[in-house]
């Protein structure tokens, strides 16, 4: 009895031990097999975290002089998001090291000289030299800046919308969430750089002979230069509409957009009487500054221009809405130049277009000055 029991125990134990050893070996082989992939994913993940962290450091420490996303601010600091900086600068300086060491050492110790292009110096940012940034923050901001080296592919095309009932309603939201709004504004509210699309459904069918309203809208989206409407405002308008919507939009997106535009049967308001309630924006009541005549002072002119072009996204008091809250300009050593540069150049990757005439926008240099002055005024007031 006792013997066979102890023998059974030994057999069970041997079996368990062998099974455990085999499982252990299998687990180690399994872990080893996936180790290279895991390490690569880990490295990519930390690189991504460094870029994201560097971006927030950039916003706090660098954007004030080098522009919202590295376009630079004239007379203050050069562009960083430029091929010249990323590819040619080291050669120009005959710098021995690589781009990372150039960026990190420049951020750490600053550039204590002015030159003819920029009339401010760059301070030392490293805590070691009396600045505000830790070594890891400097490394991360360099990683972020170097990430501009990658070909700036536009964001992945939006995923096709699900069946969300009411194609027109979906199209309206899409209109509001894409570039359309940045130029055309909400229908009935006045175009910004593109024509106001109010009443489009009424006139679309009569624009091109033999083309019905839907066909015309499709043509206008996919091939904007094919036909320039007589009511298109003078200036850069016809050239500004991007010509690549055929590639950017999925069939479903084009479809919902067309459905929405076909619902625009209310003609453009002639001139809203003073004191009338503002129309709804995308179903939201956003107050709009009253129409005003051109004032005398730059600030008054800036206010008018702001109301026409900026308030829709940045809020009537600059408090932000779809666009950034404008007190952001106060991060800069020179908020006025910063605001002017950001307005003139726009912000790549966001809905903020370039407003400078030279870049195809609607504002002349003096108008840009006025708007920037008003924006800084608003930011300080807020």
């Amino acid at each position, binding site marked *: 009895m006792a013997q066979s029991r102890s023998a059974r125990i030994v057999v069970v134990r041997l079996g368990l031990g062998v099974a455990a050893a085999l499982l252990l070996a299998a687990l180690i082989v399994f872990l080893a097999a996936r180790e290279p992939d895991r*390490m690569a994913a880990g490295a990519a993940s930390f690189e991504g975290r460094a870029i994201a962290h560097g971006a927030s450091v950039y916003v706090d420490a660098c954007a004030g002089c080098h522009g919202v996303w590295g376009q630079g601010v004239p007379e203050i600091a050069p562009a960083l998001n430029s091929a010249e900086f990323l590819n040619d600068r080291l050669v120009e300086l005959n710098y021995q090291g690589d781009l990372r060491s150039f960026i990190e050492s420049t951020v750490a110790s600053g550039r204590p000289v002015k030159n003819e292009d920029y009339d401010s110096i760059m301070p030392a940012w490293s805590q070691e030299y009396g600045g505000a940034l830790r070594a890891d923050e400097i490394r991360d901001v360099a990683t972020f800046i170097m990430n501009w080296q990658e070909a700036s592919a536009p964001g992945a095309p939006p995923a096709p919308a699900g069946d969300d009932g009411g194609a027109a309603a979906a199209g309206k939201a899409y209109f509001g969430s894409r570039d359309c709004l940045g130029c055309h504004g909400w229908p009935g509210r006045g175009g910004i750089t593109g024509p106001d699309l109010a009443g489009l459904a009424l006139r679309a069918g009569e624009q091109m002979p033999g083309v019905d309203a839907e066909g015309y809208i499709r043509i206008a989206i996919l091939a904007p230069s094919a036909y320039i409407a007589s009511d298109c405002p003078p200036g850069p308008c016809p050239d500004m509409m991007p010509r690549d919507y055929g590639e950017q939009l999925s069939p479903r*997106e084009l479809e919902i957009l067309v459905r929405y535009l076909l619902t625009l049967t209310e003609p453009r308001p002639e001139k809203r009487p003073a004191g009338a309630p503002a129309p709804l924006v995308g179903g939201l009541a956003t107050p709009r500054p009253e129409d005003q005549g051109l004032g005398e002072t730059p600030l008054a002119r800036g206010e008018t221009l702001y109301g026409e072009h900026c308030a829709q996204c940045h809020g009537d008091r600059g408090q932000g809405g779809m666009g950034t809250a404008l007190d952001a300009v106060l991060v800069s050593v020179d908020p006025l130049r910063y605001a002017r540069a950001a307005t003139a150049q726009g912000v790549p990757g966001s809905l903020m277009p370039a407003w400078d005439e030279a870049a195809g926008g609607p504002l002349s240099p003096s108008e840009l000055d006025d708007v920037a002055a008003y924006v800084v005024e608003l930011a300080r007031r807020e």
Partner: protein
Amino acid sequence: MGVRQDRPGKVGTQVAGRAGRVLDEVVTRLTAGLTIADLRALLRGEPLRRPDPRLSVHTRSFWFHIKPRYYHEAATRFTHTFRLGLLATVLLVVEALTGVLLMFYYTPSPDRAYGDMVRIISAVPFGQLIRDLHRLAAEGLVVVALLHLARTFLTGSYKDPRRFTWATGVALLALVLFLSFSGYLLPWDQLAYWAVTIGTSLADKIPPAALGAWLKSIFLGGPEVSGDTLLRFYLLHVLLVPLIAAVFFAVHYFKVVRAGISLPSAEEEVGRDTAKRVPVERRRYTIPDVLSDEIVFISIVAVILLGVIAFGIYRGAPLESHADPLTTPAGIAAPWYFLWVQGLLKLGNATLMGVIVPVLFFLVALFLPYLDRNPSRRARDRKLAISLFAVTVVALVGLTWLGRPAYGVELPPAQAVAEKMMPEEGQGEITGLPWSELKPGEWDTRTYGVSTAGPALRAALAALEAELAAQPQMPEGRAKLVISQPQPGLKKLALRLFWQGADGGEQVYERNAFVHADARAGAE
């Protein structure tokens, strides 16, 4: 070969020839003295030759000399001890081995520590596995040590002659907790920095005030957690505390062997200890019985440890962003085994609840065997002790519950909502969305239903809307989420919360976050 031909002994080898002798020799070496014939005799339950070949190794070898020759059969039953002491030892060894491996890649300096952690995870083969093992075994060690303590209490095994054994065990538990705490700081991330900042702030509360302040500055190497603290904690973690723990471990183990593992209380009369008087028929010899049992047990533990990590059942040791003394994160959580102290702190002032009560608790535990004069180890004679134990367990669980971050400092409502959607650390309902769902554009809690938002983004916006509606202090709450893409692979999420302020004006709270496509393991 010829020299040792007499080794197999009288029974002799039954496997013929030279190969048989070699095999016998190998088996004898492996079993530390048992020939094939001895093994067969053992399996059949026949008497062994004399002197007993199982015992001689205990006088010849250091490692076997510290193991008893045999155990009482009743003390080796799995359900009596659950092998918790052995398990704790195994985990301690895992800690030591993985700890040394981690030390190869780690520099205890604020400039390098975090970068080294990143390197361990992303550039060292098996680095993350080793780190996860170190962390898992550390947490496991706390659990196992507590269970070991509970088992010892419930079987009354802390009574004479094992009173000092119990005291060394409680001291070891405190050392293990301190090892965990000191290891917490080493990754030098936000979690580490702030958990240790909060933890060490208790040192300030040690009365009298001057002593507390002095102790804290000695402990931290300055007024706050800094590079000096990191070096101090490192040396405590890898050198001083392990040395002290090794001494306590040695004494603890020595005492366990010397007094023998206590028998189940039913096996002996009240007030008597017969653990060392093992009748011949109830002996279980270390070789091969107990030893093989332990090897199998350890192998199974190893499989469980590795399996739990390999299949992601254990989520792995976290690494938050780099320590930032200027940014206090929203939810600072102590490690779970210290939550009961946080719970205590919510009940009263910090000196009383944070220092005096835990220290008293520890001292009572330490001297418990000397306080409990009841000689009986049987549960029915120990109703009071077991009730008090149950009350203590319930109290600790309750305090732990109370100490959870959910009962922590309440954030202002807007910040609480933003923290849930786009937390400063880790991924929230919005920042955790799949990359493709974070579609550039403007999204609004009032219109997302008719927008082109994908299903996951839509669900997140619905959650955000519900979260705002649930905040009584944010009437007419609404939110806008603007997603833009400043760089390839990088998206900026700007969340703005609007609500009606007390003065009727619109209040705004803004939080921005950046997310990178590659830094979202598991979210895709």
